[in-house]
């Protein structure tokens, strides 16, 4: 056989399969982003979120220019004009024994659009401010949770041995501790005294506390899958290959393991956000989250609880906001997962 190849392999320089020139160097991130961008339900969810976030950001504007009330000051003896008549915001009962005082209900006008709460504050304005806190806490807690979980998961998975043993056992313990109970125990300690870390003292009313608490409690739930992922990655062929090439461990960690874990982490972001919003509201509902007079959706629901039978809208409105936000986050989370990492499941 003289010329043995149909075409000489070394000359063979064909284009990558299916790659159109325009897509050169499209990173997996960008690819994921493209997929999300073409997903209708994700777009709808993202727009809903955008509206909610924008509304929350505009809270001071609403309070100053539209409702014209301070949503953090009690307004127990105030009056407003409704349909031309001046009425008290807190209306004392006049019938029978004259027991009880009821705040004004939805007025469907700029002031007290959704009525007042038991302190005579404008519920609509508080709702927007509450959204700020709920979103801020959920977002920051998600960040903390993911960073901690990544740290723990990566340490346990990558270094193995005694580190893994110790970390895994700690996770085991936290795992067997129902999250809400853990959150409540931490809250009670921290809310009553704040916490001092080194030179910094976080006062007990600070938003940092619920952020920290919510950030911590879900760590085991994320750290475990991360650890699993790191273990798989550690035994993956490309890590072995890197090892075989004499690439130092820390480099492998940062260049090979971390970027791959990051996808998993990103997939968790919307889902964790959703979970954290619910958790935050639950803690605030149990009044161990955001401290009065600051509002979050949870605290407004709690305020509304004492008015449930007379002014249900006070509890209804923040509840619906939560449902809508969490729903949108979950939808978004689904498509992020589909786009980036179809395997990840948040239980």
């Amino acid at each position, binding site marked *: 056989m003289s010329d043995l190849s149909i075409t000489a392999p070394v000359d063979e320089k064909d284009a990558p399969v299916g790659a159109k020139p325009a897509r050169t160097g499209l990173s997996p991130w960008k690819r994921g982003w493209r997929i999300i961008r073409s997903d209708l339900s994700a777009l709808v969810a993202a727009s809903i979120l955008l509206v909610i976030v924008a509304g929350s950001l505009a809270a001071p504007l609403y309070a100053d220019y539209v409702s014209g009330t301070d949503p953090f000051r009690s307004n127990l003896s105030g009056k407003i004009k409704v349909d031309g008549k001046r009425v008290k915001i807190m209306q004392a009962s006049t019938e029978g024994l004259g027991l009880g005082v009821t705040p004004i209900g939805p007025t469907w006008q700029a002031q007290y659009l959704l009525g007042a709460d038991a302190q005579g504050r404008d519920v609509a304005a508080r709702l927007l401010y509450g959204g700020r806190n709920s979103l801020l806490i959920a977002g920051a807690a998600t960040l903390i949770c993911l960073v901690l979980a990544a740290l723990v998961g990566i340490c346990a998975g990558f270094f193995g041995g005694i580190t893994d043993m110790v970390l895994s*056992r*700690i996770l*085991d*313990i936290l*795992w*067997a*501790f*129902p*999250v*809400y*109970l853990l959150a*409540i*125990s*931490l809250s*009670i*300690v921290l809310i*009553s*005294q704040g916490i001092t870390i080194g030179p910094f003292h976080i006062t007990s009313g600070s938003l940092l506390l619920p952020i920290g608490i919510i950030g911590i409690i879900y760590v085991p739930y994320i750290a475990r899958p991360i650890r699993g992922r790191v273990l798989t990655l550690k035994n993956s062929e490309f890590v072995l290959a890197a090892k075989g090439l004499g690439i130092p461990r820390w480099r492998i960690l940062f260049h090979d393991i971390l970027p791959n874990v990051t996808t998993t982490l990103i997939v968790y972001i919307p889902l964790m956000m*959703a979970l954290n919003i*619910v958790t935050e*509201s*639950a803690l605030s*509902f*149990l009044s161990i989250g955001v401290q009065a007079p600051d509002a979050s959706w*949870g605290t407004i*629901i709690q305020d509304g*609880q004492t008015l*449930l*039978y007379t002014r*249900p809208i006070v*509890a*209804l409105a923040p*509840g619906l906001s*939560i*449902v*809508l936000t*969490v*729903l949108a986050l*979950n*939808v978004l989370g689904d498509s992020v997962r589909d786009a980036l990492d179809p395997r990840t*499941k948040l*239980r």
Partner: protein
Amino acid sequence: MAFAMLQRLVQMVFVMFGISALVFLIFFATPGADPAARIAGRNAAQETVEAIRKDFGFDRPLPVQYGIMMKRLFVTQDLTSFVNRGLKVVPQVLSAAPITLSLVFGAAVLWVVGGITVGVIAAMMRGTVIDKGLMILALIGVSMPVFWFGEMMNLVSQSRFHDTWLFSWVPGLGYKPLLSDPWGWFKTLLIPWFTLAALYIGIYGRVLRANLVEAYQEDFIRTARAKGLGPMRVMLRHALRTSLIPFVTMFGLDFGVLVGGAALLTEVVFGLNGIGRLTYQALLNLDLPMILATVMYASFFVVVTNAVVDMVYVLIDPRVRG
């Protein structure tokens, strides 16, 4: 087998020790928690407080106190509450357990049936409007904070529509024992069951649908279809049966923590004095003995359900049977 059991046992002891130590430390780190002052009561003389401190051993080193407390919790079982003096905590936990069990058990039945129904129907109707609709419903279930949903259920069933035929049967909040009043038990728990289950129906329905759709890509489903089996049979006997394995794990974990007290929001909202509410109250009151008892119970349950799940696993997944 014996080895595996022993292993479980050691694990359980370890986890329970870890949790109790954690709780213990958290407690003593909390200001306003001085048990002696709280036991002594309002306007107590300093001498009384000191006497109680000595009497109850609060002046001893923490490890000793921990040891005594554990002994009184597990061995003599006469540990009493710090807040309600003289109240033995063990019987408290034991009497709260049936309430939580009733709540969680009924909800579990609902959510397993509901989750499977939703998952199977959505997977069978994959891509259709029904599928989409069910998945949105499931997501709404997942998105509703359970306490809020509970409040709304209360609002609707106890107040707004209580006078209508729809909810006139709904009894007042609170628990009725199964043995003495089975029908009342059922009626009072129906709405809490549904409330608690809504979240899980959502989760399970979605997860199951995803698993079923995934299973449908598997070779063995193609084999089953190539055998000439009907679609229902393929779905139920082959796809569902295999997808049930992760389902059971999830169920075990959820059931474990719920029975262990994670249903506290539902219990609080519906006025059920179960473990969750007991723990919650104990935490609020910083009633250390009660916290210890409930948390021990919770972790015990979580570990036990994990063990049970592992055993059930062996039953339903021949692969782990070896």
